[in-house]
């Protein structure tokens, strides 16, 4: 059954009972929460996602629970639990859904060692995937959010899951994280995009989450073959430029941005080497999303 088929009451009840099994392909997450706002945000962001029966195998058991105590009565806070154990520091209740998202990222990065996990956005066009690695602030989420509203398919805005045997990459097609100025940039660029309300004062500033387009969600099972590594480099005055990037540097960047490169040892090294061999590497500086769409479309059209 899809999340969109649940009424608000049904969803709330399932969350309170810890019986909501969200199918995040390739992982199933069992979620418990007693925070009303979370049901609303899950309904909004994960509408097109399936749930699993209560007795299915869950890869991760997580909870976001309101903290008790006098201090929390005045300033309500919530905490993320991984399988019953409190993890991370408590945050204001208004940040509950963002905390759930960050907590899920942690679950995958800390346990999903069947993949080489790279901190990068992944988008796809006609069977070919572009991997966009980069430090926070380089504009990868904004770029990714812009492109998926113009025909590219979203795999992930944050976690690229590389299968070491097949060399294919998958994502979970979860909501895209937008920060600060990016929120308004995307609102103007894609007025129909569905977003959560902005949450101010998080550790990352003001954030909002954007729902991926329907087509991306419908195809979220399908992995893609990497064709490009593109290092985004946003700067307010930059003129759009796609230039070949040093392959050795791209290798080092992917290794550095991988959560479990060291755990895979020589297999990890070989996997990144194969990935680099199979891809064209570019650096992309931009200041404007319309330019980005034009240049990425030309790339997908096979001009470069």
């Amino acid at each position, binding site marked *: 059954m899809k999340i969109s088929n649940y009424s608000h009451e049904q969803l709330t009840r399932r969350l309170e009972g810890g019986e909501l099994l969200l199918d995040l392909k390739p992982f199933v997450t069992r979620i418990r929460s007693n925070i009303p706002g979370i049901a609303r945000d899950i309904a909004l962001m994960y509408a097109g996602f399936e749930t699993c029966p209560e007795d299915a*195998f869950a890869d991760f058991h997580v909870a976001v629970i309101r903290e008790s105590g006098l201090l929390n009565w005045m300033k309500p806070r919530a905490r993320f639990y991984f399988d019953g154990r*409190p993890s991370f520091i408590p945050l204001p209740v208004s940040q509950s859904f963002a905390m759930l998202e960050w907590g899920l990222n942690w679950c995958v990065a800390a346990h999903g060692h069947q993949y080489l996990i790279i901190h990068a956005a992944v988008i796809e066009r006609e069977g070919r995937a572009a991997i966009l690695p980069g430090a926070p602030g380089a504009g990868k989420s904004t770029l990714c959010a812009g492109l998926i509203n113009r025909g590219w398919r979203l795999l992930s805005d944050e976690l690229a899951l590389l299968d070491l045997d097949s060399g294919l990459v998958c994502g979970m097609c979860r909501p895209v994280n937008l920060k600060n100025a990016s929120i308004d940039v995307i609102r103007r660029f894609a007025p129909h995009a569905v977003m959560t309300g902005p949450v101010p004062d998080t550790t990352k500033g003001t954030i909002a989450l954007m729902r991926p387009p329907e087509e991306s969600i419908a195809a979220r099972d399908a992995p893609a073959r990497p064709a490009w590594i593109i290092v985004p480099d946003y700067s307010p005055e930059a003129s759009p430029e796609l230039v070949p990037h040093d392959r050795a540097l791209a290798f080092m960047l992917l290794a550095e941005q991988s959560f479990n490169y060291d755990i895979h040892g020589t297999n990890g090294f070989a996997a990144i080497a194969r990935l680099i061999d199979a891809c064209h590497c570019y650096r992309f500086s931009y200041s404007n999303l319309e330019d980005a769409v034009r240049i990425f479309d030309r790339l997908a059209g096979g001009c470069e």
Partner: protein
Amino acid sequence: MSGNALITRALLLPSLVTGLSVPEWDLLVRQGRRANLLARLAHRIIEQQLMDRVPPRPRSHLLSALRMADRQSSAMRWEVECILRALAGVDERVILLKGAAYLLSDLPTAKGRTFADVDILVPKQRIAEVESQLMLHGWQGTHHDDYDQRYYRQWMHEIPPLRHVKRGTSIDVHHTVLPESARLKINTALLFQSAIAVPGHGRLYVLAPVDMVLHSATHLFHEGTLENGLRDLFDLDSLLRHFGARPDFWKQLVPRATELGMRRPLYYALRYCSKILNTPIPVEVINELEPGKPAPIVSSMMDFCYQRALSPQHGSCSTKGSRLATTFLYIRSHWLRMPFPLLVQHLLRKAMRNSTARAWETLFTPAPEKPEP
């Protein structure tokens, strides 16, 4: 045995996993993860050639845990190498303890085991030299508070843990195996005398088999927070099964425990290994330990506590009295660690420093659970 957690039963009888339902798999993975035994289970399943019969979802968690454990093993070997290089100028044997010792001696105990810190043992008169050499090679002290320094250096069996600035790895440098202030007085000199060399590693040593078992037992049954209690009990079980096959092992065990002052921890180790893990122990050894065993009332109290504490610290395993048991064992560990006046002084000191609320916590609840990294 029948009341054991699923993870314990699966480790004792891996063929059990061929008949598990989906919800049982869900529970098994969670208990294994929490008890730090998932990789060991993966290893046991592979050993019995049963991995093909594990459903794909749990299988990827088992293999993922095993991959992580393998990585920790190689990191641990490298860390030991770095320590030896750093201590090249110190003319003294370096004795590895616990996990690192099992690994470097290639014991089956190390298979699928997870590792965190390295523990080494050096004679007390060498501590200053070892510490300064480690510091020259990139390790830094962690407890900078005057009181903590004094607490470690005056009363403990180790100096404050050192952390490597670049690798972030930790090393505990011990000069004996129990705090100096502990009730149990250990004859440390004997441990040094019988240590055996690790082939191919120069001045690297591990404790002799009997001593290794006794140390593991002493460590576990003086521990206040038993987060890895079940894992440590499986270590003991594995050591006993492995060394137990050697001709003189069982004959030496109790006399050596008497000589070192470790009879009581050995008594508990053998009791709970056989009770919980069905470890085969010769009846003569049990009889040898009869004199001086705890009074029946103490014994039943310890059974109550350890049968709860030596199960995964997971919601599915908590029963009536789990909290009481962990609290009791936490207080007991402090009681064993130092004489009462010193204990009071220590807790008051902590209390004053941490504000009253925290002090009550320190007194009456086990250490708060560490957040996930």
